[in-house]
């Protein structure tokens, strides 16, 4: 393989005078190099080197930010992912998933409700789920003036359901289980996070019964009580433009990929040793002590 001749350089000392006599005969034979790579891949938990087409994969900005956050973290021994608002203690792996498009998407004509399907089958069976969150991007309205908003509601509600059993047209209504809900302000931008751990836990337990998440956006009102009938009504146009559930027809693919809904799973692969809390102190504290 083309990479093999370079493999011994990679794991050798940087200082040329230590153990490097410049003699190519000291290099390991190809069999040993294959063995070295196998061992390294096993260390990272891979059976083989993954074959990836990078042009098709977009790295979510949130993953890059989380990586930067972990790299800047002061905990020397900890492998836990620091994520505010989620119980990610002992979770050492984060996976991101995007919606799997299908013909079912066409059934949702309006932007205020949508079914999101995430294929979580790539999560190894041995890994323990610690947390799962759905993130939705909000944009559009924040840039508009309050006059432009007119009489649209200032807050709206987003409800996230686990589709326990899909409906059959004219025969059976679908069965939903509400997993999380949030009131969002229309003048705010950024992402909104929803705890969907019960749904992902169920999908991992019953992979065939993963019918996705049903997300519904309903209008709310901050200026006094709202009749239940009003609450259920289809929201005014800017509200469903605010929270992004699906791609607009005119929207460019590269713009949409950074705004699309994402599912993040936080798992524990069990490969790390549990250490007493006293060991997981910061390097700064250790130096001071």
């Amino acid at each position, binding site marked *: 393989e083309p990479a093999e001749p370079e493999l011994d350089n*990679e794991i050798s000392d*940087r200082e040329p005078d230590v153990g490097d006599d410049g003699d190519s005969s000291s290099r390991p034979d190809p069999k040993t190099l294959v063995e070295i790579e196998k061992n390294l891949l096993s260390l*990272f938990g891979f059976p083989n080197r993954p074959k990836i087409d*990078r042009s098709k994969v977009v790295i979510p900005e949130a993953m890059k930010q989380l990586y930067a956050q972990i790299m800047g973290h002061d905990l020397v021994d*900890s492998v836990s992912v620091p994520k505010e608002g989620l119980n990610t203690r002992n979770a050492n792996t984060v996976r991101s998933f995007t919606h799997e498009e299908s013909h079912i998407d066409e059934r949702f004509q309006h932007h205020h409700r949508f079914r999101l399907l995430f294929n979580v089958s790539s999560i190894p069976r041995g890994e323990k789920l610690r947390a799962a969150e759905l993130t939705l991007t909000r944009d559009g309205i924040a840039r508009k003036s309050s006059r432009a908003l007119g009489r649209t509601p200032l807050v709206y509600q987003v409800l996230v359901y686990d589709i326990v059993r899909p409906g059959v047209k004219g025969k059976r209504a679908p069965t939903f289980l509400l997993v999380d809900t949030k009131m969002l302000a229309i003048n705010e931008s950024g992402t909104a996070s929803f705890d969907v751990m019960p749904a992902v836990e169920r999908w991992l337990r019953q992979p065939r019964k993963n019918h996705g998440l049903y997300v519904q956006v309903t209008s709310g009102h901050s200026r006094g009580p709202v009749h239940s009938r009003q609450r259920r009504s289809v929201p005014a146009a800017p509200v469903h433009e605010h929270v992004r559930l699906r791609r607009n027809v005119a929207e460019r693919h590269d713009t949409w990929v950074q705004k699309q809904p994402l599912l993040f799973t936080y798992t524990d692969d069990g490969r790390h040793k549990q250490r007493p809390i006293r060991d997981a102190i910061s390097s700064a504290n250790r130096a001071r002590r």
Partner: protein
Amino acid sequence: ASAKRSSRRKNELCQRKPLYVDFSDVGWNDWIVAPPGYEAYYCQGDCRFPIADHLNTTNHAIVQTLVNSYNPTLAPKACCVPTQLSSISMLYLNEQNKVVLKNYQDMTVVGCGCR
């Protein structure tokens, strides 16, 4: 010169040395998004009596080094090994083209000592 350098190295006290693992050298940068490589470090050097405080030694290593300094045939010197390690994070793509962020324990040497 080489022999002189080699002899000097043999007498160096136990300490941390640089070791960089570059993922692009093995062509792994197509699936490992970040980091491009990482500082692994290694420990090398001599554990001589008396062992300095910063070498984070154990009582047993002190006794072993003491016995060795008295008569090297009775016991070898204590070993220069990593005594503190830290984890690294890796952002990569798996076989299903999913983006994964994983923390790996004990990947970087933070401190070396005599054990």
